[in-house]
């Protein structure tokens, strides 16, 4: 099947083998997590990967008898709304900063850029007080409001819009196209790679977010998957197969995103060291 054009050096084979062992080790936690999720309680204490009688009972119990499905839906709602909002607003601001010359532009850009210096951990206390005063604790709005726009996204989009030639936009202006339509119909399609990278990492970042959802929710009905899993695992401490099933449910969407969009993700990482 594989045609070897030139003889492969023994050194290359050793390097490849070591890299392969490393790759297997990297995947070990994920493999064992899935393996345990298909086992009965009395089988998880052996090292066999595939049980002699695999079962879906853990998944059925988890989705039927706990609030996991609800948490999954909560996570999806939060991640999707946040992502849409970030795409909409960050690209609009990035476009305005890159393509309109107006007084105060530099100050606005500097202000937004400076928010990158402020760690989330510093903001959670004021956010919590704000959410409490506005009655937003244990609500979707409370979960979502801190992430609706990001300084990073604005910065990324601005850089990409700067590479869009002004001639394209001016040609549309001559044709009498409105500024908003120039933005949506001419400029936006030219920065789709940046938009997709921003979308993927905003979604994943919100799907895996832990600290803020942990703080703003105290009613189980509003937990996101990571927070729900933490509280659930605290109760099911000896039932590792259930905890692993919960962890697997939390992980599956991230794997699907990776498998479907692998190329964009790797490119996106290189674009700007995204996530976090």
């Amino acid at each position, binding site marked *: 099947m594989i045609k070897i054009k030139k003889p492969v050096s023994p050194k290359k084979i050793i390097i490849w083998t070591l890299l392969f062992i490393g790759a297997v080790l990297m995947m070990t936690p994920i493999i064992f997590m899935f393996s345990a999720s298909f086992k009965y309680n009395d089988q998880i204490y052996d090292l066999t990967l595939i049980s002699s009688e695999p079962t879906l009972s853990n998944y059925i119990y988890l989705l039927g008898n706990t609030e996991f499905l609800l948490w999954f839906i909560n996570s999806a709602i939060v991640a999707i709304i946040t992502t849409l909002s970030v795409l909409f607003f960050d690209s609009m601001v990035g476009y305005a900063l890159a393509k309109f010359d107006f007084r105060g532009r530099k100050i606005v850009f500097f202000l937004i850029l400076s928010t990158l210096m402020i760690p989330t*951990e510093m903001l959670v206390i004021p956010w919590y007080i704000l959410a409490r005063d506005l009655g937003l604790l244990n609500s979707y709005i409370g979960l979502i409001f801190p992430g609706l726009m990001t300084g990073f996204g604005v910065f990324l989009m601005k850089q990409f819009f700067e590479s869009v030639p002004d001639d394209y936009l001016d040609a549309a202006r001559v044709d009498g196209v409105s500024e908003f339509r120039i933005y949506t119909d001419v400029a936006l399609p030219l920065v789709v790679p940046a938009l997709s990278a921003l979308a993927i990492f905003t979604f994943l970042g919100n799907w895996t977010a832990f600290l803020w959802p942990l703080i703003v929710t105290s009613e189980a009905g509003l937990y996101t998957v990571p927070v729900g899993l*933490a509280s659930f695992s605290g109760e099911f401490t000896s039932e590792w197969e259930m905890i692993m099933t919960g962890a697997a449910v939390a992980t599956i969407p991230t794997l699907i995103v990776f498998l479907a969009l692998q190329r964009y993700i*790797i490119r996106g990482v290189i674009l700007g060291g995204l996530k976090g």
Partner: protein
Amino acid sequence: MNKTLAQKKAMWAWAFISVPLLYFVLVRFYPTLDAFSISLTDWNIVGEKRFVGLDNFIALFSDPVFWIVLGNTFEYILLGVPVSLLLSFIIAYYLDQIRFGHGFLRACYFIPFLTTAAAMAWVWRWFYQPVPIGMINLALGQMGIVQMEFLRSTTQALPAVLAPAIWAGLGFQIVIFIAGLRAIPGTYYEAARVDGAGAWQILSEITLPQLRPTIIFLVVISSIGFLRIFDQVYNMTQEGEGGPLNATRPLVLHIYKAAFDDFEMGMAAAQTVVLFVILSVITLIQLRALKNDKD
């Protein structure tokens, strides 16, 4: 209604940015100032705020537990950064030379980066359990090697909690390193080979110096990452306390406990100011290092 094109554009620009600007002011700037102002008060979240000046900071730095927490935080950084960078560089260096199965191997190294830290923390916690539950001790037992305490030991717990954080970050660092390696012009290597330079010499005199900006970037990003470690500690230690005996408790967990368990908002906010200062110092060092490169 005779507006010049410039005026029209400015109008549109403000139409585009006014709502987001309001958002950034309300949800980023105001809370930042608020955090600083709360740090100067004594406040249990329900009662009145009482201005106490720098008392919170004085109390913090005379609290032995806070020093333990700071020590832990720096241990995460000083252990995590070199270990993860060394591992990811070695893997990237060799992975870059491999064609067969390159995409598959890279995917295996990269996938942990995308996983949910809180979920994977529970997998690692399971691995670390004593026999008959934990995989690692089970494997050690089968090989006849002595059992490890891991999360129950005051000395092993911190590295044990750090491991999944390093594991999750490796894929990111590898991808960045490979991109950096590929940006080095091939002519440099050819010239070196013509001059008869050995593999080690090429590595130390071409590859590593050329990777300097990449290395600075990764040192900064991973330092900030380990500085902010929370998810793993919260999910891997008993009751999320950062134990045993505070042995794994980092700054962010200490902030969380002060604010949302003890409702000492002033003390918690003061700690976020400390976090902010550490972060700013790291960023300043980065800017200085990059500036030296340009000079």
